[in-house]
C-alpha cells in the first residue's frame, strides 16, 4: 500500500469513530485525571490491511533467523555468562509485554478520544505479539543451549523469586490503579519511551557481542513496534496537559514512574550489560555511557525537556540523581554484587569476574577495583564447594542488605536508606523517593487533593519474610530451584557443569537459617531501630560494614 493510499485509508477508518447514542460503555477503570474531548489525531496512522502483512513479514524474518541460528550452530559460540542472565530476563519480560496489552482498555475507558483508541488497539495486538514471541525465544534457548535448567521452569521461578517480583512492577504497574498513572505515564511515557531503549536496543547489541544474534533479531523486531507506541503515549500526554488540573498529578506520576523505572530497569539491564558480557573492548560503551546517550540525551533532553513549555513539570532533580546513582554511587555494581551474593536464591548461574573484567571496570569506572575487586576475588575463591558455605555466609566484608519496601531492590546505596513506620510496621526504603512513593504518592489523598483512583502497593513485598527461619535447603526445594537429580541446585556461582563442582541441597543444609531483615527490624524497639539505621547509612560501598571508629 502506497504512503498516499495509506493516508487516505487511515482517514477513511476515522469514520468508524463511535459516539454512544443509547448506552455509554461500562467504565471499569477510573482515573483522577480529567480530559476534555479533544481532536487529537491517531499518531500511529496504522491500518490493519497493511499492518498484518507487515507484521507477518517481520515474523518471517525472525523465524528465518531462528532457523538459521540452529542450522549455523550459534550455540557453539554463545557465551554462557550471557545466556545465564537471559534465564532471568526472559522469565520476566513476557509478563510486562502482555500486561501492556491488557492495559490498553484502561485507556479506552478514560481517554475520551475515539481516534486514539485505534492506535491503542494496535498496540494491544503488538504486545500480545511481543509476549508470545519472547516466550518462543526462551523455548528455543531451552531446546538448544547447553543448560536448560532455569529456562525450563522459568515461569514458576519468576513467580516466586524475589528478582521476578522486582520485575513484576514492570507489569503490574501498567495494569493496576489509576488508569492514566498506570497505562499512560508509567507504561508509555516512561517505560516505553525512555527505558525500552536500554532494554531492546542496548541489550541486544550486547547479546550480539556475546555470540547471540537471536536476541537482537527478536528484540529489534519488538522495538520496531515500540517506537509506534511512544506516539500513543505522547498524544495522551498532550491531552492531559491541556487541562491544568492534571498538572499536579502529572508531576506526581512522572516522579514515581521515572524513579521506579530507574530503580528496576537500571538494576536489571545494567547488571546484564555490565556483568553478563565477555566483551571487554575498551571502546565498547559501558552501561553508564549507554544510559547517558539513550536515556539522558535522547529521552530527557530531546523528549522531556521540550514538554516543559506545555506546562509539564520535569523531575530534573530525579534525573540528575539517577545519573549520580549510576555514575557516582555505583548503583549497577552494587546490584550485581547483591545478585551474586544471593546466587543461591536464584535459578541461573552467575559467572565470576576475571582479571580482564577487572581491568575493563577500572577503565570505565575509575576506582571500581578498590570498591568491588576484593569481593569478586572472594566470589571466585568461594565459587566451588570445598568445605565452606556460599559467599553470603562467609566473612567477606559484606552486610546483607535490608530490602526497599517500594521498589523491592535492596537498599544497596547504604547512605540513602530511610525508614518509616507505615500502616503499623517499620519499613525500609532504598531512597527518599521510594519512601515518598509509598507514603505519599500511592495514597487516597495527595497534597490535600482527593485521589480516590490511585493504586496501592500491596503484597508480601519482602521475599525473605516468607522464609524467615527456614533452612536454606528447604528454601531452595520449596522454590523448586533443583535439577532433575533431586539434589543439584539450578543456580551456581560459576559456569562449571562438572557435577562434582556443583552445589547441592546437602551443601545448603549446613548453612545458617535464612533471616528476614524486615522481620528482625520489626522485632527491635525504637532505640534499636534508630541504632540500626545509624549504622546502616555508614555502611558501604560494596556492602562493607560501617567503620568501627568513624
Amino acid at each position, binding site marked *: 500500500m502506497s504512503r498516499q493510499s495509506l493516508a487516505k485509508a487511515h482517514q477513511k477508518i476515522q469514520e468508524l469513530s463511535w459516539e454512544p447514542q443509547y448506552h455509554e460503555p461500562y467504565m471499569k477503570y477510573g482515573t483522577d485525571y480529567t480530559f476534555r474531548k479533544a481532536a487529537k489525531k491517531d499518531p500511529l496512522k496504522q491500518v490493519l490491511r497493511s499492518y498484518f502483512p507487515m507484521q507477518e513479514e517481520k515474523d518471517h524474518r525472525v523465524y528465518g533467523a531462528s532457523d538459521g541460528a540452529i542450522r549455523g550452530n550459534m550455540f557453539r559460540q554463545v557465551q554462557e555468562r550471557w545466556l545465564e542472565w537471559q534465564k532471568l530476563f526472559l522469565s520476566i519480560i513476557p509478563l510486562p509485554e502482555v500486561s501492556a496489552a491488557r492495559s490498553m482498555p484502561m485507556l479506552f475507558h478514560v481517554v475520551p478520544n475515539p481516534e486514539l483508541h485505534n492506535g491503542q488497539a494496535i498496540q494491544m495486538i503488538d504486545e500480545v505479539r511481543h509476549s508470545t514471541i519472547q516466550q518462543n525465544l526462551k523455548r528455543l534457548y531451552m531446546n538448544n543451549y547447553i543448560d536448560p535448567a532455569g529456562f525450563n521452569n522459568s515461569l514458576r521461578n519468576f513467580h516466586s523469586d524475589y528478582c521476578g517480583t522486582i520485575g513484576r512492577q514492570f507489569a503490574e504497574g501498567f495494569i*493496576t490503579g489509576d488508569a492514566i498513572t498506570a497505562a499512560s505515564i508509567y507504561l508509555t511515557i516512561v517505560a516505553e519511551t525512555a527505558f525500552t531503549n536500554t532494554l531492546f536496543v542496548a541489550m541486544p547489541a550486547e547479546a550480539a557481542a556475546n555470540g547471540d544474534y537471536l536476541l537482537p533479531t527478536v528484540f529489534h523486531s519488538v522495538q520496531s513496534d515500540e517506537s509506534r507506541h511512544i506516539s500513543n503515549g505522547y498524544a495522551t500526554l498532550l491531552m492531559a496537559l491541556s487541562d491544568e488540573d492534571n498538572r499536579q498529578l502529572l508531576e506526581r506520576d512522572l516522579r514515581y514512574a521515572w524513579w521506579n523505572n530507574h530503580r528496576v530497569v537500571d538494576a536489571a539491564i545494567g547488571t546484564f550489560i555490565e556483568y553478563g558480557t565477555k566483551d571487554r573492548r575498551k571502546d565498547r560503551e559501558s552501561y553508564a555511557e549507554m544510559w547517558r546517550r539513550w536515556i539522558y540525551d535522547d529521552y530527557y533532553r530531546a523528549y522531556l525537556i521540550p514538554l516543559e513549555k506545555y506546562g509539564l513539570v520535569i523531575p530534573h532533580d530525579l534525573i540528575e540523581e539517577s545519573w549520580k546513582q549510576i555514575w557516582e554511587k555505583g548503583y549497577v555494581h552494587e546490584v550485581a554484587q547483591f545478585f551474586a551474593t544471593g546466587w543461591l536464591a536464584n535459578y541461573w548461574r552467575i559467572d565470576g569476574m576475571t582479571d580482564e573484567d577487572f581491568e575493563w571496570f577500572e577503565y570505565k569506572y575509575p576506582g571500581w577495583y578498590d570498591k568491588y575487586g576484593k569481593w569478586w576475588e572472594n566470589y571466585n575463591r568461594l565459587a566451588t564447594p570445598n568445605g565452606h558455605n556460599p559467599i553470603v555466609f562467609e566473612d567477606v566484608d559484606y552486610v546483607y542488605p535490608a530490602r526497599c519496601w517500594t521498589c523491592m531492590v535492596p537498599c544497596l546505596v547504604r547512605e540513602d536508606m530511610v525508614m518509616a513506620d507505615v500502616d503499623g510496621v517499620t519499613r525500609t526504603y532504598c531512597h527518599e523517593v521510594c519512601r515518598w512513593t509509598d507514603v505519599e504518592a500511592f495514597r487516597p489523598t495527595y497534597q490535600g487533593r482527593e485521589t480516590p483512583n490511585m493504586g496501592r502497593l500491596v503484597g508480601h513485598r519482602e521475599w525473605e519474610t516468607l522464609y524467615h527461619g527456614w533452612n536454606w535447603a528447604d528454601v531452595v526445594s520449596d522454590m523448586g530451584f533443583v535439577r532433575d537429580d533431586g539434589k543439584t541446585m539450578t543456580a551456581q556461582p560459576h559456569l562449571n557443569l562438572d557435577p562434582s563442582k556443583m552445589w547441592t541441597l546437602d551443601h545448603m543444609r549446613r548453612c545458617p537459617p535464612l533471616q528476614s531483615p524486615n522481620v528482625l527490624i520489626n522485632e527491635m524497639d525504637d532505640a534499636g531501630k534508630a541504632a540500626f539505621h545509624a549504622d546502616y547509612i555508614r555502611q558501604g560501598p560494596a556492602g562493607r560494614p560501617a567503620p568501627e571508629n568513624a
Partner: protein
Amino acid sequence: MTTTQRPERSVPKPTFTDAEAGAQEFPDSGASARRYNYYKPAKRKQTHYEDVTVDVQPDPRHYLSQGWIYGFADGSRGYPLTWTKLKAWGVDEPEPERGIGSGGRHVADWPAHGWHEFRDPNEEWEMTFYRYNANVVRQVNQNIENARVLKGFDNWTPNWVNFVERNVGAWMHVEHILGLYVFAACNRSAPTNMHNTAIAVNSMHKIRFAQDLALYNLTLSEEIDGFDGSAHLDAWNNDDVWQGVRKVTEALTAVDDDWGEMMFATNVVFEPLIGELFRSNLVMQVAAGNGDFVTPTVMGAAEYDYAQRDLRWTQACFGPLVQDREFADHNKQLLQGWLAKWVPQALEAARTLQPIWSLPDAKPPRFEDSLDRAKSRFAGIVSDLGLEAPKELNL
C-alpha cells in the same frame, strides 16, 4: 597515490564456547529437561501454543508466593475472579495464606480452579494470528482488486449501490464497536492468559473486518459514480431500521462489570441472531442476484472468523462451565438468565432491521425464513453448550 593504513576495526571476536545442547552430561542436561515443566498440558503432549501462553499471567493460587504487588483503590488486585459472576470449580477455595515463615505455599494440586483448564481450540499466538489475518487481508484485497480490474462493479443496479453504501456500510460500525469496546475492552478482565489472549484475537478479527468494510467502501467510492461514501454514517446515525441493532450493540459495551456476560451475549446471542442474520442470511444470499460477486467474499471472510474461530473459543470457554463439577447449576442458571435478557433485545433489533430485506431488486429469502435459519443456528449453539433455548426465542 598514497594509501593510508586504516586502523583495526574494533569488533567483538567470536569465541568457540561449545555451549550447545548435548555438549556435556550433568543434572538437567537430558532431553527430558528441555520442556517447560511448570504446567500440565491439556492433552498428553504440550503444544507450542501452550508453551507460549500458559502461566504467563501468574496466579497467587499457583506460584505467585509474594502475591500481587499492586492493588486498585478498592483493594482488588491482579485478575480478580469476581469480574464475572460465572464460577469455575475451586474459585471459592481461599488463596494460600502466606506470611512470616510460611514458605511459598505453591499449589501442588494444579489446576487450583477450573478457569485454568481453558485452552483456545484455535491455539492462537502471534505466529498464527498474523499469518491468518495477513492471509485474509490479502485475499480480500485480491478479490476487490480483481473486481475493480474486471469492472465488476459496473453490473450493480442503482438500488444495490444504495443498499451497499448504506446497509453494508452501516455494518462496519457494529464490528468496530464490538471489536474495540467489547472484546479489546475485556482483554484485561478474564482470569487466565489463555482467556485474555483469545479475547484479544477475537477483537483483532472484529477491528480488521470493520476496517475491511470501511476500505471496501472507500474503493467503491472511487469506482462507482455516485457511490456516497458517507451514506453509512447517515444510515448508522439516523436510519430507523439500524437503531435497533445500534441499541443492542451499544448495550453490549455497557454490561455492568462482567466480562463473561459480554463475551457470552455477543458471541452466543448477538452473532447468530443478528450478525449471521445480516451477513449470511441477507447480504451473502442476495448479492449475487444483484450482480455483486465481491461483497459476499468480504463478508465471507468475517463469517469464517466467527463461525470457524470466534465461536470455537467461545464454546470451549462456556461449555465446560455448564458441566462444571462444582458450579454447573449456578452457571446454567446465570447463562439461562443472560439468554432471557439478551435474546429479546436481539430479536427486537433483528425485526427492526426487517425493512432492508425488501430493498434489493433481486429479492433475498423472506425475512422470516432468514430469521428462522438464524434462530435454528442459535438454538443449535445453545444446545451444544448444554443450555436450553429460551422461551423468548419464540417471540
